[in-house]
């Protein structure tokens, strides 16, 4: 498509502005992590690596990272298994209520986190009567992390069609052998993409986490929120935020490359 010069300039300006609004604040966080000011005055009065050093010795922050990673890994694992199973069921079989189930699976990602949070909090405490803790956070995260796996896997299954599986059965392979040798290898990159997104989603989740975490459990996002407005902690929070940005970019970038390269191949 060809655009006029005026249109190109306008669109270019708008795009630059929007990207600037999104990414300049992140850049400020990055700069502030090296600032000598403890209350984040702008422009930074001087440069120091002090906070980076302190951040990596901060017990609260390190514990928060460990907890968040544990939760994200567990929620991702649950999502991968359940997401794959539900995708196969919905894409490969026809049954009563299939469309309804499909909607119910996707819905949690659209539900406001606060609603999910309140609902699960109530359910866990009053109905199931379980103690809130890491386990309840994992279950809560899995409810919406499943969606990213589900979306990736079901799209792959749809594009793959059934003929590869039919060919495998035709050549003498039973259901499990077909899954192991044909279906799963075809799903591998979709699972990786979906899993990375699920991990990223869980890792920085704060609303649902707040409602489903017990008293003693502090995930990294919760630790950041608690410490952001404490004197002398703000620069450390900035350091952690920069680390979080980097940790989040990697899986998103990989997931996008995985699904992008697949699309180009076909």
């Amino acid at each position, binding site marked *: 498509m060809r655009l006029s010069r005026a249109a190109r300039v306008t669109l270019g300006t708008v795009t630059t502005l929007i990207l600037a609004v999104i990414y300049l604040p992140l850049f400020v966080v990055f700069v502030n992590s090296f600032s000598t000011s403890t209350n984040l005055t702008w422009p930074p009065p001087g440069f120091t690596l002090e906070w980076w050093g302190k951040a990596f010795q901060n017990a609260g922050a390190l514990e928060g990272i460990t907890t968040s990673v544990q939760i994200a890994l567990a929620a991702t694992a649950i999502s991968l298994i359940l997401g794959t199973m539900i995708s196969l069921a919905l894409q490969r079989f026809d049954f009563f209520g299939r469309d309804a189930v499909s909607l119910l699976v996707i819905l949690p990602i659209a539900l406001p986190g606060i609603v999910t949070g309140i609902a699960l909090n109530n359910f866990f405490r009053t109905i199931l009567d379980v103690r809130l803790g890491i386990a309840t956070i994992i279950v809560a995260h899995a409810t919406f992390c499943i969606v990213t796996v589900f979306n990736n896997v079901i799209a792959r299954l749809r594009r793959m069609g059934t*003929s*590869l599986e*039919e*060919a*495998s*059965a*035709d*050549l*003498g*392979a*039973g259901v499990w*052998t077909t899954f192991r*040798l*044909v279906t799963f*290898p*075809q799903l591998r990159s979709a699972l990786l993409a979906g899993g990375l997104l699920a991990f990223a989603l869980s890792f920085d989740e704060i609303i649902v986490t707040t409602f489903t975490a017990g008293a003693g459990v502090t995930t990294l996002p919760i630790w950041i929120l608690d410490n952001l407005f404490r004197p002398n902690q703000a620069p450390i929070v900035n350091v952690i935020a920069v680390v979080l940005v980097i940790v989040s970019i990697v899986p998103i970038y990989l997931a996008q490359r995985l699904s992008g390269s697949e699309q180009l*191949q076909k």
Partner: protein
Amino acid sequence: MTSATPAIRLTGLTKTFGSVNAVDQLDLEIGEGEFFSMLGPSGSGKTTVLRLIAGFELPTSGTVELQGVDVTHRAPFDRDVNTVFQDYALFPHMTVLENVAYGLRVRGVGRAERAERAEAALASVALAGFGGRKPSQLSGGQRQRVALARATVVQPKVLLLDEPLGALDLKLREQMQVELKELQRSLGITFIFVTHDQEEALTLSDRIAVFNHGHIEQLGTPTEIYEAPSSPFVASFVGTSNIFDPSEAERMLGRTSTVSIRPEKIALHTPASKPAAGTVSLPGTISEVIYLGTSTRILVELEGGKRLTVLEQNASSRSALDRRGEMVHARFASADLVALEPVAA
């Protein structure tokens, strides 16, 4: 074909999708070692029959027997038939050799033996040395051959081919037709070939079943199907036919039923010449001349408005293109007229 047990016997086979009978009360026997084609337009049920034989679909009613054994309710992996898919369905994450060896692998054949047999199968389709490649690195014709090798390496009793040449260009298709025929002869197994290409079916088959609306319109050898079509559908689907409905037949030919005549059986003469005994002679005007290389297709508008298609071999290089508007007599032996069953409602 009349051996004791047929390779395939279908009895009362019916498959319903929603309210549509894709296959309707089909009875069919296919003999050992036969090259059998199922020919028909898309939606005529031929592919569904193939999928019923392979076991990808369960029939609504009826049975499928394979060498006398009822396999109607057996899973695809439990039937001694193999399929060459329309889109080849090669496993993209495996090499060509792994693809061909797949059937042996899932049957528990040892690594060394299956590599050896897969190599031999690849060699038999002229793809020796291609084993290390991925399917995506092959051309359409090569993929087709890999699919053939993969399906035949497990030595099935029956090979099912679902429009296997549909995606290939003309030259390659003609070459693959010859190779298919040779392969079938050397393996000596039954081939069931689904196609909508009548020429392909005529070229390859021992017998052809012409499908229409989920049932077989006509079953016979290529010569029978072409020379003696039993219905207007077969007459017009297989090759070109000039069909006279009962009223036209009565008015022009003195016949009482629907009849047809093939374009190449008609010759054009000048009105002045005398027709030979036993020939029908119909006066008309040439309305269109289409040059086809080896032959010329001429449309003749008969008196009364009926149009005839005539095929003339281009034996000499004299151009026929300037013959439009010429008055001619279209003549053919009345013995060449084929009586067709009246159109079924």
